[in-house]
């Protein structure tokens, strides 16, 4: 009974994600195709026959539903169409080359954010209103307020240009050292959010009855935190994982631009500036799919951790 409940819960969530994903694809497709002017409008006018041939070879002369159907059935088989600006490449190839690096950066940044954010938040809660707390919450406030694209160049200026400890760009270094600055810059805002969340929920948990009982039994503070408070205090954090994923994805666009990392974010910005419509469309769909699927995973994780959710 219990198991079938969990499985049907998972299936239902998966099904409810499908219409969202489909509407994302439709809306993104329509936005690109409603654009005034075609992707091949250059300063130099081409003869009409050539223009017509180009449009025909990219199927731009077909009616919109037919174009969508072509695109959508391509999507289902993992084909995102040709790139408008790099004629020799398929969009899927370009994305496939860039995705692993971005995923690696994002995953490490996420891990760092969770570890540092949770320990910082716990420390702040335990030293409530004292110097440690003030310092940590102050830093967290700046981490939330100051955007990634301000923090990242400042880090590069300090650690790469002035101190010379780390490479300022991807091509300027080798090995693990070139991961350090981008990962830190990517993780900082998320560290700040996780820290504030953990602090708030830890304070709430520490004020609850079962913690008082544990304290009354004479348990030491470290063991109370580790064995009793940490797990319930983590629960609100799980629901923040979804926004955190989206935040890291957005941040990666800027970070890859600043440090010159050949990942998906840089490909996206380059495509956007070159008006490579199919490339941008493909990456938006990949990003949206990633976010929706990861959110789904987080939902399932939450349901698994907190059975009250499943029963609703």
């Amino acid at each position: 009974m219990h198991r079938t409940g969990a499985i049907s819960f998972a299936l239902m969530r998966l099904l409810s994600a499908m219409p969202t994903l489909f509407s994302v694809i439709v809306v993104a497709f329509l936005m690109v195709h409603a654009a005034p002017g075609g992707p091949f409008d250059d300063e130099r006018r081409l003869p009409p026959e050539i223009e017509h041939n180009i449009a025909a070879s990219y199927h731009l002369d077909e009616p919109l539903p037919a174009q969508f159907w072509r695109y959508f059935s391509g999507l289902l088989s993992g084909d995102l169409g040709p790139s408008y600006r790099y004629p020799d490449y398929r969009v899927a190839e370009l994305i496939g080359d860039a995705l692993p690096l971005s995923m690696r950066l994002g995953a490490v940044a996420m891990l760092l954010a969770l570890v540092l954010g949770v320990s910082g938040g716990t420390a702040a809660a335990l030293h409530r209103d004292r110097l440690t707390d003030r310092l940590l919450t102050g830093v967290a406030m700046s981490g939330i307020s100051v955007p990634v694209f301000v923090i990242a160049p400042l880090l590069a200026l300090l650690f790469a240009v002035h101190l010379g400890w780390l490479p300022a760009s991807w091509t300027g270094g080798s090995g693990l050292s070139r991961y350090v600055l981008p990962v830190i810059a990517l993780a900082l805002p998320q560290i700040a959010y996780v820290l504030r969340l953990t602090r708030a929920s830890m304070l709430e948990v520490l004020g609850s009855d079962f913690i008082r009982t544990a304290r009354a039994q004479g348990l030491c503070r470290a063991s109370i935190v580790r064995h009793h408070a940490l797990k319930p205090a983590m629960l609100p954090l799980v629901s923040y994982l979804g926004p955190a994923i989206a935040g890291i994805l957005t941040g990666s666009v800027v970070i890859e631009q600043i440090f010159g990392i050949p990942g998906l974010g840089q490909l996206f910005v380059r495509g956007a500036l070159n008006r490579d419509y199919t490339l941008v469309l493909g990456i938006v769909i990949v990003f949206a799919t990633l976010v929706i699927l990861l959110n789904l995973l987080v939902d399932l994780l939450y349901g698994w951790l907190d059975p009250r959710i499943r029963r609703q």
Partner: protein
Amino acid sequence: MNAVRSSVLRQARRGGAPSGAILLLLALVAIIAPFASPYSFHATDFDARLVAPALGSQHYFGTDDLGRDLFVRTMMGVRITLLVALVASLVSLVIGVVYGTVAGFLGGRVDALMMRVVDALYALPFIFFVILLMVTFERSLLLMFVAIGAINWLDMARIVRGQTLALKEREYVEAARLIGVPTRRIILRHITPNLLGVVVVYLTLAVPQAILIESFLSFLGLGVQEPRTSLGALVNGGVAHMEQAPWVLLIPAGMLALILLAFNFLGDGLRDALDPRAARR
């Protein structure tokens, strides 16, 4: 309402008031100062490229790589950034308040459905759709207002809906309904005015969000277009020259950080004042 007002004042004396003062002052300087400078924000001077800031010179903040005066450009950037943020936040305010009030007031199935839509939208990486918009259409300030406003209303809708749900159970609303006041009038005369406090607080928190999105777009080169500039675009320009001329990066970056911090402190202070439960956490 009186208790609210006095607690606002109490809070204002802590972090909120200095932040508000800084913002007002900055806005005033940004509007007036460019007239006082002998330089214009777009005139290039190739004999004075990357001049360092100095008190004695007329270039208070130095110049950028094209010899344009950085003081005037930074002030123009502050203007545009604040303008986009304010207008975009107003757009999100209108959408959020209308959506939230309707959902909260109608309640039941309609409410459930409308909030499911908001939940679904929360899961989407909207910023990429804004980028898609900026790529495919003519980049203009108007498009930025609408695009940023259109993705920033979700929080507002949630807050307003919650507040409306609570308000419509009040006796005076029930009394109004009993004596036959039409629904539209109840919403306009009895519900909306009482939403004001909450809305103002979340507006101050929506503004830094809008600033972030605007400067993010401008940083990527997809937002405000040359020769006009915004703080995000200035930071982007500064990154390219940070090794020879760090001030080109540091000044606009510091200004952006200052504005964002001030708005966040202001919003946090106001929220704590209106919602004492949030303050205690």
